[in-house]
């Protein structure tokens, strides 16, 4: 799965963030979602979806090579991570988080929980469609 976004379809409902937190962490909390919606209001009146593109910037800055790529998806090896959070700071989309009480950051692994429930298909899988529901 390769996540992609059609920002103009986003209505800012944030179900993607909540689906993510509940699927990944079993926590009902959109603030723990590994993607974000930026609202640009009152002007110009549009939403912007910030999501992981598996760009690898996180891996590039990791001092201990804890983040590695398999099949186009970057994952963090918890046993190797030293909790320096350089990756969180480097993420160009600002969608890596550090959960309360945890040292190891969390990042999107393109599981598709967000895609599954986005009512408009604003966030979608580039491998299987063009967005829209």
């Amino acid at each position: 799965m390769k996540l992609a976004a059609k920002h103009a379809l986003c209505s800012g409902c944030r179900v993607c963030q909540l689906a993510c937190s509940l699927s990944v962490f079993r926590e009902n909390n959109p603030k723990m979602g590994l993607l974000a919606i930026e609202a640009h209001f009152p002007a110009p009146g549009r939403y912007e979806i910030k999501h992981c593109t598996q760009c690898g910037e996180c891996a590039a800055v990791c001092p201990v090579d804890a983040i590695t790529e398999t099949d186009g998806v970057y994952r963090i090896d918890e046993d190797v991570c030293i909790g320096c959070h350089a990756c969180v700071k480097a993420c160009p989309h600002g969608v890596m988080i550090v959960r309360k009480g945890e040292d190891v950051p969390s990042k999107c692994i393109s599981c598709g929980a967000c895609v599954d429930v986005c009512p408009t298909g604003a966030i979608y899988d580039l491998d299987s469609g063009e967005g829209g529901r």
Partner: protein
Amino acid sequence: MRGGYMGKILRVNLTHGTAHSEPTDPEMARDFIGGRGFVQKILYDEVPVGANPLGPDNKVVVAPGPLSGVFMPSSGKVQFGAKSPATGIMGDANMGGHFSVEIKYAGYDAIILEGMGNRPSVVVIDDDKVEIVDGSKYWGKGSSVAEKMIKDDLGEDFQIAIIGPAGENMVNIACVSHDYGRQAGRCGIGAVMGSKKVKAIAVRGSQSVPLADPEKVLEYGKKMFYGCFEKPGFREWTPLGTPGVTPWVNEVGAFPTKNFSTTYFDDHEEIGGEALKERIWLTDKGCFCCPTPCGKYSRTTVGKKSAYVEGPEYETVALLGGNCMLSTIEEVAYANYVCDELGLDTISGGNVIGFALECAERGIITEEQIGRSVKWGDIDSFVYLAEKIARREGIGDILADGVKVASEKFGQGSERFAIHIKGLEWSGYEARWAPAMMLAYMTCDIGAHHNRAWAITYDVAKGRESTEGKAAKVIELQRIRPSFDLLGCCRLQWVEIGFEFDYYPVMFEAVTGRKITEKELYDATDRVWNLTRTRAFLELPDFSRASDYPPARFYEEPIPTGPAKGKLIKKEQLDEMLDDYYELRGWDENGTPTRETLEELGLETCIHDLERAKIL
């Protein structure tokens, strides 16, 4: 309370400048569920009978529900309540957006504002940290202007509920606004916030909503979303949202036009959903987790004036469009923007301005009193009157009290076309040829509001002359729709796309761990319904059956034009329906809840209070 509830209620005292939290009462959660149930229960218990709505004894209670913020469709409704300055009885109003869920994530099941500040403030809630900060620099500013300023100061991730100048000036039809265009509009809650000098409540939360069964919520929440996606209405209804209903309401002769003098607006195609979508729409603007956003964000231009505005929603199209005869979507949207910035409820605002225009046309108020000539369908007249009302200037000071009070002051028969019940102005369905809808307005516990029972479709389906079976249907709707207001989620998927109600008790159990039947949920709505009714009798010495009647226009003047030409409702029909309604509700012929009814619902306090007031 295993899940769904955050376990705390935040109490903010503006007189003393203090804030503390208290545990959420499990018995209140059991009997009143949350949302509007919490709002009305807390108001009943804590605001003394006879309190001045704009004085220190009144309170503003804000409550999400146990399902607010949960992974399921449209879990983002919040209820605001207070003793209403417009009606003198308990009022409430709800809105969507993202305020409800932020209260939950900050850790609260309700916020109570009490006492009275002596300088403008903003209540800033950041999880457990609560501060009452100086709000002077935002005071006097329009709702969206001030909301942006507060977000710039505190952070974009704060959610804001804010009043405009109308609220600050304690205008009886002042609303509470949020997220650049959502409103808790009815009952003048904005004026009560203004009386306490609270410009805004800003909330940010980082906590999770506890779930009794997270696996089940994940699985069932997905099922609910897919249930919505699969409904034909998901694709058919969503693109136009609520204003999509405009042509139908005109076709069935129920569109408020020219201060409810008639029920068909010749220019309705120019102001409905199609016109909105084609000419001014920028983006859909969904409330939290909404699969079918009615929120349409627009940019409108009228002459040299241009504005961003959320909407117009159907109610605004009806009351600013038809009722004030603004005949283009651009003008309706601009008038909507003006009301939003000033902090005026568009439903009551469209009523009050329509009423003023009719008074002016009839010579009941003069050009000299108004300060200029005003006319139907004129955006400049509309904006002039809206600003006068919001600032309580000149004639606006009288109109600011709503059509009931204004008509009492103007006299000369204007009471006949002051369109309200119990002091609350009528929303967007004219009901002279829709008996069930008429009864829904007559018996709505806060006044003439549509949200408790949208019964006009039943009239159209079952016969528009007959009153038979209408009371039972209205009560059925008054149980289903208010259930959503207790749960803290939106009813529109059920109303508009036919999403089944059966899903909600199942989700309630997955979230809270408490098994609940539809009957138990309806009983909770009945508890609230009898609580507000009891309270109305306690508050107003002359509250009676007469309080449930509509204005005389509806049973004295046949509809003059359009598909419903010649129709009116007879007074004996109103009485037939009220008799049926009271009997089915377990109320006496004056509409007072009986001892047996209150006992069945466990409302012993109401029995005691009515006895003490010698009403029971």
